[in-house]
């Protein structure tokens, strides 16, 4: 069948990965199409009504700093903001916000509608149009729709989330679905398997939704947001919207008894579910079984939006039969008469082993084909968004013939996420934690723009307005830091930076002096950054100087190892001295750099040493 229309970049799937990919490619000037089953459900949040959280908030800040949309969209529709972990140091502070789900979809739709290069197409993609090139190589040249029509595209980004061969479980009942109420994508799932990708099966779940009108709210502990909400986007000086309350309570012996009495009906424990679920996001049945000594588990009641009565029962994820879920809910004081609008469910879905990917998120097997989000074995809106953004950026750069953008572990959580995936693969849904970041002190929410906005600018995602503001901010920070390092405040025995090294001395105490010494800088900062984040960055650089330097030494070692590239054709089997086990481990992943090779589980320092020597031998042989 003849091509209907030609695009530079085609995105398959309109979730949190897909929308980032689509907007990035369109903003970078490419003719972009976003294929989705139902445009009404673009940017849907099928699970909890919240964005961010510890480490996830870092990812959203990074998406924003590069020019992605998740941060701005959340700031526009967030209904309760909290900065988490403030009892720790600034490196692990992370923002989280409850979002109105419907407003979030509308907000993202509106943002996409502003992109003249972006077409949104309601159609199911059933397969890929792939051509064989000489030498056994393959290249994607478009997508095939369910009706057989082919749409040509120079690059394709697949962001299909849980839709590939999705199967929902509620007790003994199972039915195919991509998300609740939406059909699964079987054609595309099978088509990817036929193309030879190594696929696996994972599982995730969601809790029941309750009707707010049937809840006795007096029984719960209210959970207010922060008095001063912390925005996600560097472009948002202040959150405007009024904030709502969430509520918390606990499960009890009655809840646990209902779980135990019905374990035989749980698809998790009956063997009905084969996919691997995340350990950090267990169902309530898992919690009760695995931690029998724990008498209660905390749960949160979170509104799904401002003009809906749906309440999300955070902490009660379950795939028990609906009647058991109803009994569990009714066991909790205040929920005795609560109406369950929808039961929780578990969903199993196919994913592609991310060891199939390059650091650009392009598949190694098929040129021009990129994968992003849950299809790569991750979980979470934020993890999806940052991958969608990177996949969209790299698809666009490839079509433009420009060099790719790969973020290093030393630069961004996003870089860590991609590197972990491609070197290690996924054996459970991958979620970001700050403990995954070995240089955590450097990768903070306050400096995400310093780390990444210059990259966003270089590739054409950062607007002139954002860039101007960024440069002004950077100049202010440099002026403040120079003053603090070089000058003494009247009455101080030492320069301000030396004083700030003392734990009890805070930069806020120096603000009056800064206002006096740098009046224009201080006035501009107070206008653009009322919460004083840019001062926090300077303060952190001074207070944690020793620890930052300690990590920097290791960052340099890592960069050196990343600089040693391994040709894709490298023949590990022909490497004398390399054990069979190492040959297999390295041959399976085919690492792009010596650094990446070092992070493949089980690869020994001895094997790396040998690899290094042979890379050098090859280099010299080639030079002669």
């Amino acid at each position, binding site marked *: 069948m003849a091509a209907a229309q030609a695009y530079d970049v085609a995105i398959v799937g309109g979730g949190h990965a897909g929308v980032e990919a689509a907007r990035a490619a369109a903003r970078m000037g490419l003719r972009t199409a976003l294929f989705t089953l139902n445009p009404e459900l673009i940017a849907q949040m099928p699970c909890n009504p919240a964005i961010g959280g510890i480490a996830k908030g870092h990812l959203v800040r990074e998406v924003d700093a590069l020019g992605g949309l998740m941060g701005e969209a959340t700031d526009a529709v967030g209904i309760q903001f909290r900065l988490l972990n403030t009892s720790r140091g600034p490196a692990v502070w992370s923002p989280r916000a409850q979002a109105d789900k419907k407003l979030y979809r509308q907000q993202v739709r509106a943002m996409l509608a502003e992109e003249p290069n972006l077409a949104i197409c309601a159609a199911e993609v059933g397969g890929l149009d792939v051509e064989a090139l000489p030498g056994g190589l393959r290249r994607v040249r478009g997508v095939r729709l369910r009706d057989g029509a082919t749409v040509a595209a120079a690059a394709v980004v697949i962001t299909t989330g849980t839709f590939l061969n999705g199967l929902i479980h509620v007790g003994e009942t199972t039915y195919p679905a991509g998300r609740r109420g939406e059909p699964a994508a079987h054609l595309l799932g099978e088509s990817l398997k036929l193309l030879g990708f190594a696929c696996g099966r994972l599982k995730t779940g969601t809790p029941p939704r309750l009707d707010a009108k049937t809840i006795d709210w007096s029984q719960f502990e209210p959970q207010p947001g922060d008095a001063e909400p912390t925005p996600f986007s560097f472009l948002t000086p202040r959150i405007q919207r009024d904030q709502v309350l969430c509520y918390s309570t606990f499960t009890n012996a009655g809840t646990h008894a209902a779980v135990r009495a019905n374990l035989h009906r749980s698809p998790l424990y009956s063997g009905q579910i084969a996919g691997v679920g995340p350990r950090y996001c267990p169902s309530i049945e898992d919690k009760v079984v695995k931690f029998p000594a724990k008498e209660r588990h905390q749960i949160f009641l979170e509104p799904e939006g401002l003009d809906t009565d749906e309440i999300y029962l955070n902490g009660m994820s379950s795939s028990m039969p609906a009647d058991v879920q109803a009994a569990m809910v009714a066991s909790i004081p205040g929920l005795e008469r609560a109406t369950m609008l929808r039961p929780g469910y578990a969903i199993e879905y196919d994913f592609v082993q991310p060891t199939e990917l390059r650091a650009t998120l392009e598949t190694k097997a098929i040129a021009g084909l990129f994968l992003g989000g849950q299809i790569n074995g991750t979980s979470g809106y934020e993890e999806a968004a940052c991958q969608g953004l990177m996949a969209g950026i790299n698809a666009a750069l490839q079509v433009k013939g420009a060099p790719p953008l790969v973020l290093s572990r030393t630069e961004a959580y996003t870089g860590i996420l991609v590197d972990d995936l491609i070197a290690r693969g996924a054996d459970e849904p991958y979620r970001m934690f700050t403990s995954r970041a070995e240089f955590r002190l450097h990768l903070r929410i306050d400096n995400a723009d310093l780390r990444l906005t210059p990259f966003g600018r270089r590739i054409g995602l950062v607007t002139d307005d954002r860039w101007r503001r960024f440069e002004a901010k950077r100049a202010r920070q440099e002026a403040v830091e120079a003053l603090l390092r070089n000058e003494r405040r009247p009455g101080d025995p030492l320069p301000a930076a030396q004083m700030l090294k003392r734990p009890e001395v805070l930069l806020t105490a120096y603000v009056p002096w800064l206002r006096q010494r740098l009046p224009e800088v201080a006035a501009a900062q107070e206008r653009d950054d009322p919460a004083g984040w840019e001062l926090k960055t300077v303060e952190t650089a001074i207070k944690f100087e020793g620890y930052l330097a300690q990590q920097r030494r290791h960052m340099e070692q890592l960069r050196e190892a990343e600089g040693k590239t391994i040709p894709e054709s490298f023949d590990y089997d022909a490497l004398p*001295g390399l054990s069979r086990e190492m040959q297999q481990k390295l041959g399976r992943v085919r690492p792009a750099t010596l650094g990446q090779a070092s992070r493949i*589980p089980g690869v020994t320092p001895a094997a790396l040493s040998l690899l290094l*020597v*042979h890379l050098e031998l090859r280099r010299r042989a080639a030079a002669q």
Partner: protein
Amino acid sequence: MSADTIAAIATPPGRGGLGVVRLSGPAALVLAERLLGRRLEPRRASWAEFRDSAGALLDHVVATFFPGPRSATGEDVVEIAAHGSPVLLQALLEAALAAGARLADPGEYTRRAFLNGRIDLAQAEAIADLIAAHTLHQARSAARQMGGSVARLLRPAHERLTHLIARLEAGIDFAEDDVTVLADDALAAAIGGVEAELQTLAAGFEHARALREGLTVALVGRPNVGKSSLFNRLLERERAIVTAEPGTTRDLVEDSLDWDGLAVRLRDTAGIRPPAGEAERLGIERSWQAAADADFVLAVCDASQPPGPEDRALLDRLQALPRALLVRNKADLPPAPAWDAPEWNGAVTPLVVSARTGAGLDALRRAVRAAALPPAGAESDAITNLRHARQIALARDHLARAAAAAGVPHEALLVDLYEALHALDAITGQTTVEDILGVIFSTFCIGK
């Protein structure tokens, strides 16, 4: 070009005429000059003195500085040639490491030479094979270590540290969950627990080294109590000058012997009394020094003469030293009963010997062996490898930093705890984030 400076013994193991410790890397010259206390000129052999940390002269050495890139490795290289005793070379190497060098990995000099282009392609291919052989050997020995005794020794410390890290990480990454944050005193106690385990291992290493290098045993006492006779009898040959005139041994006399596999350096010393002249005063000073330096002191007295205030003063001073035993000599003569009073004997059975007849000497040897050697079976449980000992020392440095850091948030404290963990990982194999997360998920009920 490599950022760090490495050191290793460059000559084959075993006793040779001359042994060489080689430093390579950007700080080679600075470290060597600091170590030897003198400046070195490029490509010129220089005499230097190698002294221990207390300033005692250990050996005269010859040091040569080869500036990079025209050196064996292409980096700055200093070679220090010493008289080839393994113990001395080891001491020299340890001094270089203490000064800031890192112990070279097997094959690392060759690898650096190769990477810095000091070896041509044909040579390089041969050397790659050599490194491959090294690598296989390394892999095999690493595999042995993983399941072996060293890993077993390290396991308690490693496990405590991993759990502490997991605990702190849980408090950061799962602050929203039901995880209680570790209080400051519990944190200090947990770091102390890891340190205590490592301290035991480090002490075991020092002890094992003392055994390997031999035990110094000093004979100390008043003049004419028969120290030199005892010395000769223990050596079973005439060596020290023995006369009936007090104060004959003015200098130290030392010889080595083998007590059932335990290498012993036996030292005779000048008798201790108010000195009669300058020469004797120096001799007596050396006696005290020898007693202080020795691993073991035999406080010799003449049991045929009644004890006096000088004996008391001497014994009080000697007994303040670690591992001193009172030896009652001249058992062949009629004994002075006052020596049997409890104030002279304490809890241990007195060692009654006769240097003249040899009576009681077997019991003396047994007593020294028993006191010097660890209990049966414990010997094989010691850390004996210098590389392992260095890694343990490195881990302890980082633990000390973490323990000393006050008012520092946990994610910063963790920087040092991870460095300590990675120092141990260099022996036991890598601990990954997944390992830490595994501990967290099995310990805490995480997630909503």
